[in-house]
């Protein structure tokens, strides 16, 4: 007795459902069998995204710039997304596939929760994301890289967690902080010097913005704060209470303070 509206399997995964029922909806379709491109960069270009554990949970942030070669393609692109009530992702790589993966992941988590009646564990979510990154490998070797950082507030353990990924979907638990993207190394250097465990909220936000500022100075692909247009990095707090965007006023004030401090003021 086939009850399905669309010949699908009987699982709880939206990702598997789409692959089976509507493969054209996924960017990977039609990409099988293509040859890897020569001279492909090892890290995603044109971005810095980072995450940091602090006293109340985790901060996750990203710059706002998208580039096409030497041109600015977008000044206010959003790289940080809430995945559900207590987890978020920031994605480095090719803008289109990144935004699609964010959307797919959000749908995956909600879908599972609705079908099963209960949400996934944080590990389960991290794992599922790893599978999506893995499935993107054919595109990645063509240069359309998608590499996320995944963070969540683990309600059971009562702590923030950070997961990082490589191109092939390998997943790694990261203890304190991480940054990726073309400016990732520069951001990590800053965090390495300034990070301390269990920082208070104000210090943690300041550190995140310092790291992004440094990355923007060294990496042409990463955008710094734009005081003229009032465009600042996206920063989200993920805590026991849920996910809050750090408001623009506060970001502006912190970025101005950073600039002033460097001016020697």
């Amino acid at each position, binding site marked *: *007795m086939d*009850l*399905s*509206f*669309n010949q*699908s399997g*009987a699982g709880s995964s*939206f990702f598997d*459902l*789409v692959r089976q*029922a*509507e493969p054209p*909806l996924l960017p990977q379709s039609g990409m099988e069998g293509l040859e890897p491109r020569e001279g492909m960069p090892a890290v995603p270009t044109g971005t810095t995204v980072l995450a940091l554990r602090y006293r109340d949970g985790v901060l996750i942030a990203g710059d706002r710039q998208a580039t096409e070669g030497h041109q600015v393609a977008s000044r206010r692109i959003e790289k940080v997304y809430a995945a559900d009530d207590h987890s978020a992702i920031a994605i480095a790589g090719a803008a289109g596939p990144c935004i699609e993966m964010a*959307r*797919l992941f959000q*749908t995956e988590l*909600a*879908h599972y929760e*609705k*079908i099963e*009646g209960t949400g996934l564990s944080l590990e389960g979510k991290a794992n599922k994301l790893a599978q999506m990154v893995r499935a993107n490998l054919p595109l990645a070797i063509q240069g359309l890289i998608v590499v996320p950082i995944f963070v969540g507030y683990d309600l059971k353990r009562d702590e923030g967690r950070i997961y990082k990924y490589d191109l092939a979907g390998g997943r790694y638990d990261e203890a304190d902080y991480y940054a990726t993207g073309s400016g990732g190394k520069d951001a990590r250097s800053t965090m390495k010097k300034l990070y301390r465990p269990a920082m208070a909220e104000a210090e943690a936000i300041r550190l995140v913005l310092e790291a992004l500022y440094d990355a923007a100075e060294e990496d042409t692909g990463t955008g710094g704060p734009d005081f003229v247009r009032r465009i600042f990095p996206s920063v989200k707090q993920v805590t026991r209470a849920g996910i809050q965007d750090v408001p623009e006023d506060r970001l502006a004030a912190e970025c101005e303070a950073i600039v002033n401090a460097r001016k020697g003021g």
Partner: protein
Amino acid sequence: MPLPYYVSPEQMMQDKAEYARKGIAKGKSIIALEFQGGILIVAENPSASLNKVSEVYDRIAFAGAGKYSEFERLRKEGIRYADLKGYAYGREDVTAKSLANAYSQVIGNIFSMEIKPLEVEILVLEVGEGAASNEFYRIAFDGSIMDEKVYATIGGQAEELKLFLRDKYRDGLGLEEALHLATRALEAATSQKVKAAILEVAVLERDRAGRKFRRIPQAELRDLMEKEGDGGG
């Protein structure tokens, strides 16, 4: 050569309908009704873990009466349909109307083509921007679809509950009042005292951002029922 028995299609359909009706008549009932804040869904369900009422999409809920395993499969298929459509197009493009029609097709086909019809009756509910745009769809075991207004009932006592509500329902009910009304309706229809522990209650709240569906947990349910003098729990 043995001759096959001839049964007229009409007879077959009647037999199937009777079979399905009997299956549903044995089962418990569900009421969905409008209140000021959206739509309230009250199901007779003593189980704490097996649900009859479920979220489907941002503004859409599902309620099933009859054979659990059958409406449970329908519930999951509805969620898959909604999420695929919302992903392929946009979140606003998923409507209760198209989902209800899809259910009608599937259930109707099974009724006609399969030896055993589904013993289910389901509701697809959508909370609208304003009260006037709430939608209630009731799909019966044979796939027939009814567009109800203001309240809808399914299950073994559906008719009695509907008559009770026709008499007692009025507009502009608050959540507690609507819950109280639904409880009284169930008590009248089943001639039994209704306590929080045997109810599964959920709401589609118009003013919630994003996903409007919310289950009302037992503790809150007992509080709400006590407020109206039910002494629930």
